[in-house]
């Protein structure tokens, strides 16, 4: 593997919320253009892993190298400028801003983000409701908005937490297509998903988490042979 292709390298990552120790030494690497998922049960620590990468947990130790930069001591706001885009599981729509303001809010971190027109085309609901208060959107619309706004920033490493949650099947399909397209553009994606059926066909690799550890790494081509194993971990 060439080191230029390596976008994220995490080694021995521990994370804490106050007293509680949530992640116990995570190791993973993600190559440019890869789509990697984090699977696991509720409370396994998947969201925490994403938040730890963004330095949004109480405390973290170990090493997180992004694009060749060590970020373990970097304040959160600088990490974003390495090209990171984060879509949190609670969506984080701002009630004090309207839809369009929410969409335009995150500063661009790179120049080649999607244009607003492209985004509105992809999510016509948002266009229609663009002047309405952010949190007045329906649950699913908020989910779309949370995703759309980081696509605008031009981030090329996306951390996506449960983006299909609460979305109609037709939108879920569309999202799958969008992710494939982003991958083709060379974006790197780390995806946390419950919906294995959604994740399986588009992911290159899967990490399985349990109790703050990575317990298994499954490549796309191994899925068939490891179905049993995944079943026991995930209860699919």
């Amino acid at each position: 593997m060439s080191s230029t292709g390596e976008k994220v390298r995490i080694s021995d990552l521990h994370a804490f919320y106050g007293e509680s120790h949530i992640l116990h030494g995570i190791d993973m690497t993600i190559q440019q253009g890869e789509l990697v998922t984090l699977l696991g049960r509720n409370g396994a620590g998947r969201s925490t892993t994403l938040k730890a990468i963004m330095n949004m947990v109480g405390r973290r130790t170990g090493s997180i190298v992004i694009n060749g930069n060590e970020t373990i001591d970097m304040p959160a706001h600088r990490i974003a400028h390495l090209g990171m885009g984060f879509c949190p599981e609670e969506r984080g729509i701002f009630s004090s801003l309207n839809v369009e303001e929410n969409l335009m809010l995150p500063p661009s971190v790179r120049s080649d983000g999607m244009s607003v027109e492209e985004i509105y085309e992809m999510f016509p609901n948002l266009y229609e409701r663009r002047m309405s208060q952010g949190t007045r959107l329906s649950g699913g619309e908020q989910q779309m908005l949370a995703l759309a706004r980081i696509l605008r920033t031009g981030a090329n490493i996306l951390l996506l937490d449960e983006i299909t949650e609460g979305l109609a099947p037709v939108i879920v399909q569309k999202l799958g297509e969008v992710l494939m397209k982003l991958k083709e553009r060379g974006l790197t994606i780390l995806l946390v998903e419950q919906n294995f059926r959604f994740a399986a066909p588009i992911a290159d690799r899967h990490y399985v988490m349990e109790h703050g550890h990575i317990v298994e790494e499954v490549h796309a081509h191994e899925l068939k042979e490891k179905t049993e194993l995944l079943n026991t971990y995930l209860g699919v």
Partner: protein
Amino acid sequence: MSADSSDYVLETQNLIKEFKGFTAVDDVNLKVQRGHIHALIGPNGAGKTTVFNLLTKFLTPTSGRILYNGDDITSMKSAAIARKGVVRSFQISAVFPHLSVLENVRVALQRKEGNSFHFWRHESVLDNLNDRAVELLDSVGLADFADATTVDLSYGRKRALEIATTLALEPELMLLDEPTQGMGHEDVDVVANLIKKVSKDRTILMVEHNLHVVSKLADQITVLQRGAILTEGTYEKVSADPRVKEAYLGVAADESEEAA
């Protein structure tokens, strides 16, 4: 009232809700039959949650009527509607986080006791409700957690607790908004089974995106689109409708059917 309409627990007539020129619910005539599990599905932003909010008066309809057991409840306050037996759960989990699990259920049981304004009596008068509360917790598999503080529960258990609390009110009609959202597969099944279990003797109206759950539970489905009813019927009928496929299911419908 015609004899026919008495079969319907809940009925809406030309229900409309507008937000500043935007019509979120557009002339909806919904009929929920007694004893059914009735699912409300539809694309995002179709107005499902808004319908729920109208039914429970968290929002006021712009026009139209809501009938419950034939009575017009359009102008009643939300607490009063709850007292009549229409109880909802929320899309985002609703529990009392710093009360114990038992107390969560007891608060719901307490209402019927008629002593809720008695500030001069000791709370131990509520202890006679404990047995019933434990019973309810048991029915959702939470009996062992009665003394735990609610914040410490896992997500799935919080949902279960919420259902137990709702059951405490002995609702005739339960409104569930995406009861399985955000759950792992195991929990989804647990909650789905729970819903099936509690649906005896009562009517349930639910919003759900998980087709697996819908196909498994729903006796009747109403599909909303852009605030209006697109079609209604059983899962088989609805999922075969090409308009539903296009607007909501996408091609996944067939796969999901296989899975179910």
